[in-house]
């Protein structure tokens, strides 16, 4: 019998996967195509990527559904296929997951704003996330991972949407920028306020992902640790996008430099770690090695 993911977090550091979109692009996903479409059109490719992350040592893979909220899919004309594409996303990850490993249903931001900055109500957002959560839950996700949130109000709305259709544990990562006065989301939400509000909403774990590189993430995790007793998730970017000598776009923080900070992230209080933009299975393999060294 597999421990629930939240129980596992209490016993040891849990390893998540890394980037999905760039892996799909590397396998031919044309720009402009919704990555979620490939859950149905090219399921073999999506499974292969999940398989590589599991093989690299990830305990948890996140489904290919980052842009799978009904509102985001609507931008690709796929809004009415939200349930189907998310169901497929979770099923694919479930099918390839070895025994004892986990599937997190990825739920990224809608890309829209609530009133007054935007035109949407909290009810609109909750419904868009609920439809996604329903697909992910029915497809066999172990937890729902609401990620890369830049607006605390949207994150809270997403949690409520997920809760309205599913009893799965909900994890939330916000994306913070580093300022002289501390870490803030795009909307100005602080780490302290984000953690407090999300904790009050009953989420299972909170954290930070994207935007920050692994060195900056150390400070952000420290701030989170001071703000909450919940398990903390940290998924840093591999630096900033940069143009390589071959003219291709890569990320500025190389693998060695990236993983150098992994143990510090863990020691600062993160119980769930993984990668974000610019990372790939090789990063996760290197992180797995670091974590093994630490625990042995």
């Amino acid at each position: 019998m597999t421990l629930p993911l939240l129980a596992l977090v209490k016993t040891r550091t849990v390893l998540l996967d890394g980037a999905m979109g760039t892996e799909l692009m590397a396998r031919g996903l044309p720009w402009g195509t919704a990555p979620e479409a490939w859950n149905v059109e090219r399921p073999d490719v999506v499974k292969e990527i999940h398989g590589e992350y599991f093989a690299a040592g990830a305990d948890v893979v996140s489904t290919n559904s980052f842009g799978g909220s009904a509102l985001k899919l609507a931008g690709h004309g796929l809004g009415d296929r939200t349930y189907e594409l998310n169901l497929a996303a979770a099923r694919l990850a479930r099918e390839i997951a070895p025994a004892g490993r986990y599937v997190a249903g990825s739920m990224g931001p809608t890309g829209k704003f609530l009133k007054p900055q935007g035109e949407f109500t909290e009810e609109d957002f909750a419904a868009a996330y609920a439809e996604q959560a329903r697909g992910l839950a029915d497809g066999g996700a172990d937890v729902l991972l609401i990620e890369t949130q830049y607006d605390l109000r949207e994150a809270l709305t997403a949690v409520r949407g997920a809760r309205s259709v599913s009893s799965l544990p909900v994890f939330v990562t916000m994306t913070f920028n580093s300022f002289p006065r501390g870490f803030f989301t795009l909307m100005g939400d602080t780490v302290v306020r984000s953690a407090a509000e999300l904790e009050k909403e009953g989420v299972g774990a909170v954290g930070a992902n994207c935007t920050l590189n692994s060195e900056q993430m150390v400070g952000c995790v420290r701030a989170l640790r001071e703000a909450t007793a919940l398990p903390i998730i940290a998924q840093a970017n591999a630096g900033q996008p940069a143009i390589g000598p071959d003219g291709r776009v890569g990320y500025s923080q190389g693998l060695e430099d990236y993983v150098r900070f992994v143990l510090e992230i863990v020691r600062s209080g993160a119980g769930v770690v993984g990668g974000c933009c610019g990372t790939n299975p090789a990063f996760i393999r290197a992180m797995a090695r670091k974590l093994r060294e630490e625990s042995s």
Partner: protein
Amino acid sequence: MIKDELLRSMNEAIVAGDKGAAVALAADAVRSGANLLEVIEKGYVPGLQKVGELWEQGDYFLPELISSAEAMKAAMAVLEPELDRNKIVARKGGKVVIGTVEGDIHDIGKNLVASMLQAGGFEVFDLGADVKLERFVEKAEIVGAEIICLSALLTTTMTNQRRLIGLLRDKGLRDKYKVLVGGAPASRKWADEIGADGYAENAVAAVKLARTMIGQG
């Protein structure tokens, strides 16, 4: 001569993002026959500059920036018809065509830049997101724009910023427009590499850059 107190109230209305106050003060200025250029340049514009400073130092965030830009636009909507009626030419920022490049549906950053440019006095033609490259050129030609702003959030779609410059070159229009690029993966180095005229890291910097481009820096 307008009372300093009134100019200060205008300034404060923009800094506070108080659209109602910004509009009421503008209407008062029109009614009292005040020098509207002075109202704009000494009352409202410094407020927007202050907002930019607060944003850049991390005291203001997106909601405040949007509120202030909206207050500014609302005040200008009251003042501009009066300027036109009196044949007064305000310092115009020029025409900008802006959009997120094709293949990319992310538009938060682009919308913010468009809003700030508009608040900063530019005439903005926003083509939206996932915009075919040809449309940028067509629109710029039709409206007689000086500047084309290209946004991209993805490392995979930013290459379309490079393609647009190639497209302008092919059409023999490269020197006719200033091409500015932005978005999370873009950088000054990227702009140099693809031969763009400039890169701005954020919406406030974008307005400054656009001003420099048209010789108002």
